[in-house]
């Protein structure tokens, strides 16, 4: 089911402007320049168009395995990553395309990775669930539900160990909150006062099981109280609110070494992954309703239009540019070579990849 473009994206007159979100007045948002606001919108649009182009490529058989699309959740990655400071780090699970683009990875290397090409950001060795860019402090891209949460807690531990005033944004879905490893990480973060903020992207469903059918207790973020951590709930369709609440939680973590839980209510239009028959667990009406009333791109468009920052012409330009960029990425991926068989056993061991520094001996690979 192809998401229908919003009336705005098609260049038609926008609907009456939504009331300005109170979060727009928070200093973190009020001080944004026009250019910065447009850039936030642009990044969200680029994510949307990249995901749509990836979906098409997947349906054409260019992409194998799983494809967990971020369509509908764009404000969460863009909002939260946009308030990161220079020593903050970010890690997420397998729905990682949005975060990768939000931290600045190039669409070419991402699409090439999806196609399994040697020019991919992981040389074709990871795929959709395993985008990484340490130079941008983005630590993946992880496939096991909740498995990344102790990792993110460890990143925060390292920052504290080194007296670096930074925090680790550790993302997980509503499906991950019941994993044992996640609770272990909550406990360690609180016990050792680690600068980690756990972001629960609550899109209502872990694969096909609704959050209500999965999680006992009064709320996902509220569980933080059991560990003595700060917590908040946030509307994920509201870019400004995501920025404001992320910033507040990050400050607590960085400045006071208080870990926190931020539960962000969001929604995905596509299934858990592309192959997901989501008719078994939700109605078309539900999806359409969210698209009509809470599409984050539509909402931020309306907001920026009301602020006088985004004209219909500029919006059209941004949309067209995003589509073109996504198409170019697909072309780049198409034209790129696959890795060779001889590449399979590279990037397994640091020592093997750095033979001039190798100190061990013996045989490391077998047949």
């Amino acid at each position, binding site marked *: 089911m192809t998401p229908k473009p919003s009336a705005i994206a098609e260049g038609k007159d926008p609907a009456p402007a939504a009331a300005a979100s109170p979060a727009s007045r928070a200093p973190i948002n009020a001080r944004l320049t026009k250019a910065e606001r447009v850039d936030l919108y642009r990044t969200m649009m680029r994510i949307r168009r990249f995901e749509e182009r990836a979906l098409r490529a997947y349906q054409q058989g260019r992409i194998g395995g799983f494809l967990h699309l971020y369509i509908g959740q764009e404000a969460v990655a863009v909002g939260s990553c946009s308030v990161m400071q220079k020593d903050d780090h970010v890690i997420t699970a397998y729905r990682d395309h949005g975060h990768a683009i939000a931290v600045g990875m190039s669409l070419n290397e991402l699409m090439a990775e999806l196609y399994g090409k040697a020019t991919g950001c992981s040389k074709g060795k990871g795929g959709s669930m395993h985008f990484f860019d340490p130079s941008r402090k983005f630590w993946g891209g992880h496939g096991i539900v909740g498995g990344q949460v102790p990792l993110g807690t460890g990143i925060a531990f390292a920052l504290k160990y080194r007296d670096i005033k930074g925090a680790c944004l550790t993302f997980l879905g509503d499906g991950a909150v019941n994993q044992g490893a996640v609770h272990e990480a909550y406990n360690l973060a609180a016990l050792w006062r680690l600068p980690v903020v756990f972001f629960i992207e609550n899109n209502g469903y872990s694969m096909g099981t609704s959050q209500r059918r999965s999680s006992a207790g009064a709320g996902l973020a509220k569980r933080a109280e059991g560990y003595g951590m700060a917590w908040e709930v946030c509307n994920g369709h509201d870019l400004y609110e995501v920025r404001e609440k992320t910033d507040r939680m990050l400050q607590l973590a960085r400045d006071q070494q208080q870990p926190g839980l931020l539960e962000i209510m969001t929604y995905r239009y596509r299934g858990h992954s592309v192959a997901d028959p989501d008719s078994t667990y939700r109605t078309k009406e539900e999806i359409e309703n969210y698209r009509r009333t809470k599409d984050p791109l539509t909402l931020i468009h309306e907001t920026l239009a009301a602020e006088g920052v985004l004209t219909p012409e500029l919006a059209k330009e941004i949309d067209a540019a995003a589509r073109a960029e996504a198409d170019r990425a697909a072309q780049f991926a198409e034209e790129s070579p696959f890795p060779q068989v001889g590449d399979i056993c590279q990037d397994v061991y640091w020592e093997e990849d750095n033979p001039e520094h190798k100190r061990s001996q013996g*045989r490391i690979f077998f047949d």
Partner: protein
Amino acid sequence: MPLITYREALNQALAEELERDPNVLLLGEEIGQFNGAYKVTEGLLARFGPKRVIDAPISEAGFVGLGVGASMLGLRPVIELMFWSFYSVAFDQILNNAANIRYMSGGLINIPIVIRGPANGGTNVGATHSLTPENVCANHPGVKVVCPATAYDAKGLLKSAIRDNDPVMFLENTILYNDRSEVPAEEFLVPLGQADVKRAGTDLTIVAHGRAVMNSLKAAQLLDAEHDVSAEVVDLRSIRPLDEETVLASVRKTNRVLLVEENKPFCGVGAQLAYLIQEKAFDELDAPIKRVSAIDAPAIYSPPLEKEQLPNPQRIMTAALEML
């Protein structure tokens, strides 16, 4: 040359590496205030303080994963598992994350952790505390696996493991902790991937690792004294990487191989060795390759039976004599 215990050797290695590199830290249950369940980390909290020697709550998936995450930023955690049996609680973090993150990132990241602790049976602690998963770990490309048998090897290998930029699984043995051997006072390293001929011989080769080496040496003494058989004992020391050359050289010399291991037979370390030896030294063999593993059941509690279940010197000697 000082004669120190395996336990002291580990303690010295940890202290020396903590001293040498501020990125090294220790993490585990009871390693600090309690001085370690088996006293391997005794005195280290007092000497290095709570920032470097950290007592973790019982949450292996949590603190092993935390160590893996911290190592992505360049810290070098040496994580203790009180028993290697508890690796199963952290399996996802060790053998999904630590083993695979470098690969899945196309080589952008490395995970310089060490996970160490005792992996052994023979102490009547029952099936869930007696695992020896060196074979399971070695099955995962991305990790290295080391099993020292003596105090000398323990010290040299632990220092190498801590300096290694890949994740190293370091499997010790509580029964060996009190064994003494000569260990130089000056700094030395034992490289990973290098086996050691612990006893030269001519009639057959015994290949073993960990405590099975010590039992094989006892068996070799008995074979010599009671049967005039000269057995060569090759201590692998390192499972992955594996010193294939030393093993094959010994096979070419003696033409008979007995593999001894404490782990269970199916897909044990011996299974891999047997494949290698028949592949590369088929014509050198005068007899089929023989193996003494743990008897193929969960570790039994009953003390005298557990002694039988493990590869003790008697079983090793019997198997050797059957080959000659």
